């Protein structure tokens, strides 16, 4: 049943996503849709590391913020082309993610979550206090976005949306392929299910854990860069734990360990949360908290229902 829904729903969603600028040529809707896509990439990247490989990160806000700041500062201060800025941001986040991965090689569960949470908090403090580079509490702005886009507001928004969707879709497909079609994906799953057994079967768990860290943080950084070029403002609050909580909520909502489930979860939860803003700005996070709690306890497979559980 679920498999059949998936066969229809995923291509349908892709088609709708691709045609959205033509279907609803409205700047506000497109702005929100673009942001939703960025969140989708971030949620998928979290899922690769935490849902798929079982290495719980509470620090994805940190990787996201690193990518966002790397892109914004490089473009603002070094006039780096935003296209290269995307790559640069992914590399910076991957580097830090790799470094964060080292303690992770020796730590399990709780400890890893705490270290990554601490890491994100350090990123936030640096962002807040390194005024010359980051603009401090007010954030960094006044840097350019992707070059060569049309000037007319609606066409500009449409073009930006298409760019973001294309990059996000390619990234998600790449992550999904890594998880489902390569030996690395098998190793990720094996590590999640039973690290000792994986090692006993000859899998170099340390190498694969590190790989999961690097890939996940690179894509989180890429999401950050997309955010930076789209929103045109990066402030320290991006690195706050609320961001991480939001992302984890999306992943849990969509279904852990499926990569595409969190994408779906992100689009829906982001939509829900933006919709709730109309009722009152505080209600969206209440909903996020509720969704996390309800889904963890009662709908552990999430909407995607993908990953088999015993």
């Amino acid at each position, binding site marked *: 049943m679920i498999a059949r829904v998936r066969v229809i729903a995923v291509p349908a969603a892709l088609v709708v996503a691709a045609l959205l600028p033509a279907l609803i040529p409205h700047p506000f809707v497109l702005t929100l849709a673009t942001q939703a896509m960025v969140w989708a990439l971030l949620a998928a990247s979290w899922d690769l590391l935490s849902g798929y490989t079982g290495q719980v990160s509470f620090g994805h806000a940190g990787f996201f913020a690193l990518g966002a700041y790397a892109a914004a500062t490089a473009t603002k201060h070094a006039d780096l082309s935003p296209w290269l800025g995307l790559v640069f941001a992914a590399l910076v986040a991957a580097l830090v993610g790799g470094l964060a991965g080292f303690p992770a090689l020796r730590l399990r569960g709780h400890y890893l979550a705490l270290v990554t949470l601490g890491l994100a908090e350090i990123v936030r403090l640096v962002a807040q206090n390194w005024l010359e580079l980051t603009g401090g509490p007010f954030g960094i702005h006044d840097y350019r976005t992707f070059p060569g886009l049309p000037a007319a507001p609606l066409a500009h928004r449409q073009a930006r949306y298409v760019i973001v969707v294309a990059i996000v879709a390619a990234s998600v497909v790449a992550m999904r392929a890594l998880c489902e079609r390569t030996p690395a994906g098998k190793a990720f*799953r094996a590590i999640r299910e039973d690290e*000792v*057994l994986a*090692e*006993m*079967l000859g899998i170099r768990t340390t190498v694969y854990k590190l790989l999961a860290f690097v890939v996940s943080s690179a894509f989180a950084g890429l999401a950050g860069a997309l955010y930076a070029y789209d929103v045109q403002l990066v402030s320290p609050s991006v690195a706050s734990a609320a961001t991480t909580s939001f992302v984890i909520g999306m992943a849990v909502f969509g279904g852990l360990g499926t990569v595409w489930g969190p994408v779906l979860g992100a689009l829906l939860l982001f939509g829900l949360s933006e919709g709730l803003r109309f009722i009152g700005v505080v209600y969206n996070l209440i909903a996020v908290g509720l969704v996390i709690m309800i889904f963890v306890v009662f709908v552990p497979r999430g909407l995607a229902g993908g990953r*088999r559980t*015993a």
Partner: protein
Amino acid sequence: MGKEVTQPARLAVSELTKRFGGLRAVSGCSFEVEAGSVVGLIGPNGSGKTTVFDLITRLLRADGGRVLHDGERIDDLSTHEIARRGIGRTFQAVRLFRALPVRENLAIAAMGRGVRDWEGRADAWLERLGLMGLVDASAGSLSVGQQRLLELAMNLVIEPTLLLLDEPLAGVHPVVRRQIAETIRELRGRGRTFLIIEHHMPFVMSLCDKIVVMDHGEKIAEGPPAAIRADERVIAALLGQGRARDDA
């Protein structure tokens, strides 16, 4: 099923020692597993048998002593390197990727050792062990006996040269017991080497070329089944625990 192994593995542990706080779980333990033989490792509960396995596979680090495989020291290798030398192991409490389907378990086992073209072999083993109908079931949903068979199959698809089995018959139905015993007999005929921890005496006595007996972390006897059966110290140690089962 599976090709002949021409250069069977040989395992030797010498003066192996492991302490947990004040407890000497294994102390000064030495024995050899000759190439192509089946060696039984028996002893009362808590005598240190599983710990010996953990030390051989480097899930635990020894406080002293050495482990040699084909004449080379392996006690400074890491677990996955040891596995990649062709040493397989099962666990006293079955260890599987419980949430994953049976076939995925086999695929991961093959991937871990870098074995290709394993599918045909896997199918043959699944057929033979009666698991063929269950390839898409999650491993955790199998019965205990089927789980033990799957764990064994995961070690067989990669054609190990040395297999360490930790109580392969525990909690298993007599029919499955026979299956497991036959499998081991057949593989032994093909030159593979086994070290088996087991409490089920008829199985141990009929299958093993040699038996090593442990008590309180020390080796108290070593020899062919007939000699072990007659050894007073062994009888005392095993009876003392009420473990010399002769049932089934």
